[in-house]
Structures are given as structure tokens and as C-alpha cells.
């Protein structure tokens, strides 16, 4: 029983390492993403059945790919669709069998061709024709190599829900006739933006659970970071890909300090900065430097990373360069204007020029219908009113924020603040 368990975990590990390349290669070979994904899953099932007894093959990725290709041939034979494509795959398999007996036992392959296929796979998984949930599920499954169960666990939804999302997503891609290609130049920037958006969505899900009892599911955040690194290796000349990795590293650096021993959230000003992950900060700053070195300016992710960097290098809230942060939010409001950015700018302004100046921006925002149900707005308002000594107004704002949040732990903290606002220091 233990051995079977070990083998299963090993298969899962190999799958995480190889799945993107396997599905990408198969999609190119069989010309159909949905079929390729099915075949890859079949091969995975076969590995689970065989490896516990036979041991792990020396080149597990090649083993899985070969099994999947054989499955493809069997399927076509059954349906008597012996066409050119099938002949080509059969020829491939023959050639590989011959080559596998060469001195190294390694299958010769062109890594650049595989990288191109993986990049195509990333763009297919994050295609705009899919719903956001579908993009997330598909990306984690085919690019990240996570199992349906793992995805379901991470998002606190039933396994059947994730399965349905993936089945529907594959159907949608098929019906829309989405080609297996890197988007043409005129679409590239927008499509890359969609990919980055999916990764950031996954990261944020780990960074602050939008519902449920746990404030954070760091594992999901780490996976988003890993996929971000995969992407920067595939598109090394895209500053925003590096910018996103920088932002995620610098944000994740604060994970160890973001919750206290009881699992309650700790505000930035109360965080023990000695618990921040210095290695992650170093990696994040290096990624931001790489984004800058490309010389095409800073996009929204790089700007947010630069803001996170200002926090990361400051010894305390008081010693933070709030002027620089106000300027960075100003730049961010230029390239990606949004009420949320404006709210964050208000916080920085309050730190740089006093709570009165910040509250003026927040109160102007409170009239924005898009923000009416955005609980952080009310939290920030409470915070600023508290600092101005307006305890009753602060109490009402915190209570409103508590009413609007779906995160149980956050609600408890907000209710506590509504019950007893802090006195200004």
C-alpha cells in the first residue's frame, strides 16, 4: 500500500514537470487540443497503473508521450480514419523507436520547438473565448500539471465543478475553432495581457481567499509564481511578464508576516518586517530590474511591483518613501486608471500629506457606484476617520466594511475595529 502511494506521488511529480510539454507536443501532433488533453490524461492513467510495478522509466516524459501517441493511433484505427496524420504519427513512433536505441537512450528533440508549443498552449488555455474560471482551471491543469482534485481543493469547489469547467472549456475552444498558435503581432500585447491576468488572478486567489475560513492559500500563490517564471522563460523580451513575476515575488515576500498565530490578518503597519522573505524580495527586485532593462518603460504590473518594492526596502511604515509611492500610483492611474488604484493612491497621499488629504480622495470615490460594495473602501475610510479622531464615523465605516466582506477572518477583524476604534497617536 505504501509503495503504491509512493509511486502515485512520483507519477504526480513527473506529471507536474512534464505535462505542459507533453500536451503541447501532442496538440501539435494530433492537431486538436481537446483530443491531445484526453490522450495525455489516458497516458497518465496508464503510468499510474504500470509504474508502481515496473518502476519509473528513464525518460518518463518520452514514455508518456509515446503512450499517448499510440492511444491516438488506436483510436483512429477503431474509427477507421487511417488518414495522413495517422500515418505521420505512426512514422514518428517508428523513428523514435529506432532512435531510442542509440547510445544515449535520450530522445533527440528540439527544445526550441517544444518551447514554442508550450507558449501556444499557454495562449490557448488563457483564450478570451473562455470564461475566467475556465481559463484558470485549464491553465492550472494543462500548463501547471495540477490534478482536477488539487484545483477543486484550492478553489473550495466540488471536483465535479472543475471537471465540468474543463470539459466545457475544451468544447468551447473546439467550437470556436481556436487555432494552436502564438497570436499574431497586432493581437499579441492584448492576448499576453489576458495570460498575465489569469496568472495574477490565480495568485490573488492564494494571496487572499475571496471566501471561506482561510485568509490565504499560499500554495496557489506559489503555483502562480512558478507559472509566471515559466512564462518569462518563454517570452523573455516582454517587460510586463517580468513585471508580474516581480509583483508576485514582492507581494509573496510578505506572506510570512500577513497572518498572526491565530490566523488573523495583520495590517502592513503592524507586520513584523523581519519575517518578510528577504530572498523573495531579492528575486522580485531582480525581476523588476529585468523588466526595466528591456527599455520599453513600465506597464501596470511593473509599476505595482515598483510600489511593492518601495514597501519592501523600507524598515518601517514611517520610514517608507510615501512621496515615491504617490508618484508611482499617479503613473499607474495614467496607464491603468481604476477606482481601486485611486483608493490606494488615497492611502499613500494620507501617509505623505496627512489623513485629511487622503480622506478627500476617498470621499470623492465613495460616490462611484462601482465601489459601493467594495469593502476595502469602507475599511480605508474607517482608518482615516479614526486617525482624524472621528470615532463614530470610523465605527460606521468599519461596520459597513465588515458587512460587505465575504472573508470570515477579515470580517471578525473589521467588527472588532468597529467595536473599539483606536485613538489617534
Amino acid at each position, binding site marked *: 500500500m505504501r509503495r503504491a502511494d509512493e509511486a502515485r506521488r512520483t507519477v*504526480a511529480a513527473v506529471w507536474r514537470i512534464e505535462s505542459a510539454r507533453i500536451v503541447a507536443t501532442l496538440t501539435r501532433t494530433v492537431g486538436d487540443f481537446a483530443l491531445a488533453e484526453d490522450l495525455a490524461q489516458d497516458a497518465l492513467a496508464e503510468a499510474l497503473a504500470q509504474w508502481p510495478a515496473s518502476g519509473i522509466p528513464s525518460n518518463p516524459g518520452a514514455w508518456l508521450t509515446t503512450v499517448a501517441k499510440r492511444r491516438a493511433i488506436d483510436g483512429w484505427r477503431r474509427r477507421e480514419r487511417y488518414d495522413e496524420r495517422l500515418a505521420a504519427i505512426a512514422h514518428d513512433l517508428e523513428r523514435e523507436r529506432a532512435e531510442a536505441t542509440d547510445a544515449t537512450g535520450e530522445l533527440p528533440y528540439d527544445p526550441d520547438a517544444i518551447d514554442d508549443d508550450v507558449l501556444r498552449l499557454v495562449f490557448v488555455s488563457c483564450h478570451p473565448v473562455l470564461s475566467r474560471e475556465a481559463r484558470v482551471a485549464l491553465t492550472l491543469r494543462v500548463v501547471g500539471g495540477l490534478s482536477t482534485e488539487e484545483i477543486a481543493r484550492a478553489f473550495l469547489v466540488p471536483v465535479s465543478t472543475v471537471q465540468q469547467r474543463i470539459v466545457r472549456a475544451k468544447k468551447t475552444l473546439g467550437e470556436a475553432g481556436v487555432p494552436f498558435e502564438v497570436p499574431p503581432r497586432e493581437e499579441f500585447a492584448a492576448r499576453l495581457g489576458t495570460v498575465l491576468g489569469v496568472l495574477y488572478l490565480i495568485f490573488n486567489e492564494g494571496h487572499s481567499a475571496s471566501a471561506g475560513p482561510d485568509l490565504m492559500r499560499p500554495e496557489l500563490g506559489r503555483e502562480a509564481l512558478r507559472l509566471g517564471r515559466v512564462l518569462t522563460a518563454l517570452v523573455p523580451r516582454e517587460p510586463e511578464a517580468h513585471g508580474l513575476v516581480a509583483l508576485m515575488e514582492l507581494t509573496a515576500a510578505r506572506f510570512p508576516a500577513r497572518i498572526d498565530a491565530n490566523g488573523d490578518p495583520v495590517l502592513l503597519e503592524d507586520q*513584523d518586517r523581519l519575517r518578510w522573505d528577504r530572498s523573495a524580495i531579492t528575486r522580485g527586485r531582480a525581476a523588476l530590474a529585468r523588466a526595466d532593462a528591456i527599455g520599453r518603460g513600465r506597464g501596470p504590473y511593473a509599476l505595482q511591483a515598483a510600489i511593492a518594492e518601495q514597501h519592501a526596502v523600507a524598515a518601517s511604515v514611517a520610514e517608507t518613501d510615501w512621496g515615491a509611492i504617490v508618484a508611482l500610483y499617479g503613473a499607474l492611474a495614467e496607464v491603468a486608471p481604476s477606482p481601486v488604484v485611486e483608493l490606494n493612491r488615497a492611502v499613500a497621499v494620507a501617509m505623505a500629506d496627512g489623513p485629511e488629504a487622503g480622506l478627500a480622495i476617498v470621499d470623492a470615490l465613495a460616490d462611484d457606484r462601482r465601489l459601493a460594495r467594495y469593502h476595502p473602501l469602507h475599511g480605508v475610510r474607517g482608518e482615516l476617520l479614526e486617525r482624524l479622531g472621528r470615532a463614530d464615523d470610523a465605527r460606521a465605516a468599519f461596520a459597513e466594511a465588515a458587512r460587505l466582506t465575504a472573508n470570515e477572518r477579515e470580517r471578525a477583524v473589521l467588527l472588532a475595529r468597529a467595536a473599539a476604534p483606536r485613538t489617534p497617536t
Partner: protein
Amino acid sequence: MPKYMLIMRADDRGVEAYQELDFEQVIEAMGRYNEAMMNAGVLLAGEGLSDASEGFVVDYSNEEPLVTDGPYGETKELFNGFWIIEVASKEEAVEWAKRCPLGPGAFLEVRRVNEMDEFPQDNEWIQKEAGWREEQAQRAAKA
């Protein structure tokens, strides 16, 4: 996700074998290995070390630390470099370790990196930090 350090070690046999190898080939094989880990997004850090003849050993057996220049004579375990990878499981660390292009006389020791929250919270330094933190907070409040 846990982090693991892959520690590259060699004994005398490995060191000798390395001298015989074609340097270009070694660089290429290691380069491919590093690239594979980078492409998979698991590589966080890594360094290779220069020849042991440039190194020195500090021995604390006696009252005064004793410094001895390299090379070190008979070697059972010469530390030659490391990688730090972040992976989902121990099995994944094993899988990456197995792919390292090393030969006879070379070994990889794989060790999990301690996470921040594994340090004892009752340690005097941890407590000192708490005190220091309060001081900082007071200073911040006065600022």
C-alpha cells in the same frame, strides 16, 4: 511549496573523473539542466564553486580556529555547488535531482530548506526582535 537545496558533492574518484571530462560538454550538459529547471519555473538560486585549491578550511577543534588552505588531501565529500528549487513535493525534488548530469563519484545531497515559521518562537533572538519591533513602533508613532 517546500524549497530544497540540491548540494553537489564529489569524492576523489569524482574529482579525477571531472578532470578527464571535456569542459565544453560539461558546461553544455549543466546549462541544459539549469535551463530545464528555469523553464519549469522551479529554480530559485544556484551557484557553482571554484576549485578547492582556492578554498580553505576553518577547524574549530581547538581553542583557536585553525585555518588550512586547500586542496584538502583525501576527499570523501567535496562540496562543489548548489541549487535551490521550489517544488510541490519531495518526489518532485527527487525527480529533478535524478536529472542532474553527474557521473560516477559525484553525489547530490538533497535537503529541505527551513521555512520562516519553523524557527522556535521562544528563542531569545526571536523575543529580542519582538522588543526591537515595539521600539520601532513607538519611534514610528512619535515620527
